């Protein structure tokens, strides 16, 4: 379940020069529009032949310009879910789903069709024509079609971009099940941070055709030196936590993570179960010492790692909480009054926590 991509290519006056590796799972490609995300996917899929590059999935080399190897798209076994569903309009949903299976040379599994149909909940759509489907339904069928071709790698190019919010909420759980249930690595393009926080295990940040950062989701999200992440209103980090205990008397749940203990309003989760939480920078304040008279329950000892460059009203501060990364957004005035600098010991006061997914 490994993936290694190195590519250079020019499209007009846009240069793509990107390289990343991933241990599998769901690798999110994040960046502004025009950063080269879709171009990168098209090269991996074999729809564009790059000037030079190498693409390897699980030990199988799909492209290696140095060795003059470039498998055509239909022989790569790379599934592609496009921004729009691209279902074949002259075929029923059933035949669309079967289209890729028909060409798959990697042994059929008769139960697979039923499993995928069930996973994506598209059983009652099978006899319909694509024109009779809603956007969300069509995109689910497109995902199923790509899966049933038994790909060694699944590419998803903003699969939720053309879908309205309620439908998005409907599809995201399917993608989670896909990530957790199948052994196919996924590369997922998005410029929606909330999707990425919820879905990604590995994050690759693209800026102007180059990889600005790549690595484990929590690590990359915690960096304040990436303008595209740091300047966002919803900048923040994810933390993997374990449900430590419930306090029914106060209707609170205690979570344990590397950074320490956190109290949140009671959630329904068994003690010992794992969750991922999203702590936004704007929900974290800083104090030089632990305030004994504060109403804020969650106070974590931390150390300042670095401050983001800023000439605006606020500044993002990257913190090290016993090895875990946190971001705090404070005003520039406060940063100066507290004389925040790398190495300074502080208290991180966490005001709000969002839950992102069940592990």
């Amino acid at each position, binding site marked *: 379940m490994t993936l290694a991509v190195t590519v250079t290519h020019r499209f007009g006056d846009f240069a793509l020069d990107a390289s990343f590796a991933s241990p599998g799972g769901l690798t999110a490609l994040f960046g502004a529009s025009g950063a080269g995300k879709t171009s990168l996917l098209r090269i991996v*899929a*074999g*729809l564009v032949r790059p000037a030079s590059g190498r693409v390897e999935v699980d030990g199988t080399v799909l492209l290696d310009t140095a060795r003059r190897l470039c498998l*055509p*798209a*239909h*022989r*790569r*076994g*790379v*599934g*592609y879910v*496009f921004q*729009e569903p*691209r279902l*074949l*309009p*002259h075929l029923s949903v059933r035949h669309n789903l079967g*289209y*890729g299976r*028909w*060409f*798959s*040379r990697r042994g059929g599994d008769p139960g697979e069709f039923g499993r995928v149909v069930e996973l994506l909940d598209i059983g009652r759509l099978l006899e319909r*024509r*694509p*024109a009779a489907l809603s956007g969300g339904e069509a995109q689910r069928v497109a995902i199923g*079609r*790509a899966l049933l*071709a038994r790909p060694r790698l699944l590419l998803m190019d903003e699969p939720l971009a053309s879908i309205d919010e309620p439908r998005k909420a409907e599809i995201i759980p399917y993608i989670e099940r896909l990530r957790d249930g199948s052994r196919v690595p996924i590369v997922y393009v998005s410029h929606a941070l909330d999707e990425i926080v919820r879905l990604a295990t590995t994050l690759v940040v693209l800026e102007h055709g180059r990889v600005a950062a790549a690595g484990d989701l929590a690590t990359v999200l915690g960096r304040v030196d990436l303008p595209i992440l740091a300047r966002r209103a919803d900048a923040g980090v994810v933390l993997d936590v374990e449900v430590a205990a419930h306090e029914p008397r106060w209707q609170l749940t205690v979570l344990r993570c590397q950074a320490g203990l956190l109290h949140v309003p009671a959630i329904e989760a068994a003690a010992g179960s794992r969750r991922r939480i999203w702590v936004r920078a704007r929900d974290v304040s800083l104090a030089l010492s632990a305030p004994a008279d504060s109403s804020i329950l969650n106070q974590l000892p931390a150390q300042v790692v670095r401050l983001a460059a800023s000439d605006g009203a606020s500044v993002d501060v990257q913190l090290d909480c016993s090895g875990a990364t946190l971001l705090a957004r404070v005003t520039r005035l406060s940063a100066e009054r507290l004389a925040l600098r790398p190495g300074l010991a502080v208290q991180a006061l966490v005001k709000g926590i969002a839950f992102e997914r069940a592990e």
Partner: protein
Amino acid sequence: MLDFSPDELTAVRLSLRVALVAVAASLPLAIATAWLLARRRFPGVALLEGLVHLPLTLPPVVTGYLLLRLFGHNGVVGAFLERHLGLVFAFRWTGAALAAAVMGFPLLVRAIRLAIEQVDRRLEEAAATLGAAPPLVFATVTLPLAASGIVSGAVLAFARSMGEFGATITFVSNIPGETQTLATAIYLFTQVPGGDAAALRLAGLSIALSVAALVLSEWLDRRGRRKVTGR
């Protein structure tokens, strides 16, 4: 008015046969040419395009004369085909079909090319990522989605072939029962005394066939567009 003489009926039947064979035989080549023009960029594309459209602008008599020189008994291609395949074009109905095919070819290619250009290339890309090799993409995506346009073009070319005159009469003359088609028969009737009634009858039939073909072609085209957009 509508009691056609045996000779007239022979001419009508022959015309139908000539037009049908002309379209059926040129269809595969027309599809291949249209696909090249619609989907491929290659040096010489302008030359191919010009060549395909030449019969539209060339005087039909010139096309007929060139066919005679090439496919006649002493023509380079004609002599070769006659010796090796026993296929004779000169002064045979097959020659009339060849002339009709050449004259209808630009129309056929144009209609098919438009149909193929309307097929969303993104669907072809999707098919490729699902494992379909290019010939299979063509057979399972491009062709079905362009089918109505192709049939509509074929109907038009069929109607055009029914009325082919200049190249036909130059290449294979006007032999009753062998090369005398609807159009050449009408021409003959206008040249002989007392042929007016027959000429009028055949002209009426000609008009009816043309209108029917146009209506059918238009209907197929609309249906095809519905299918491509899925509505």
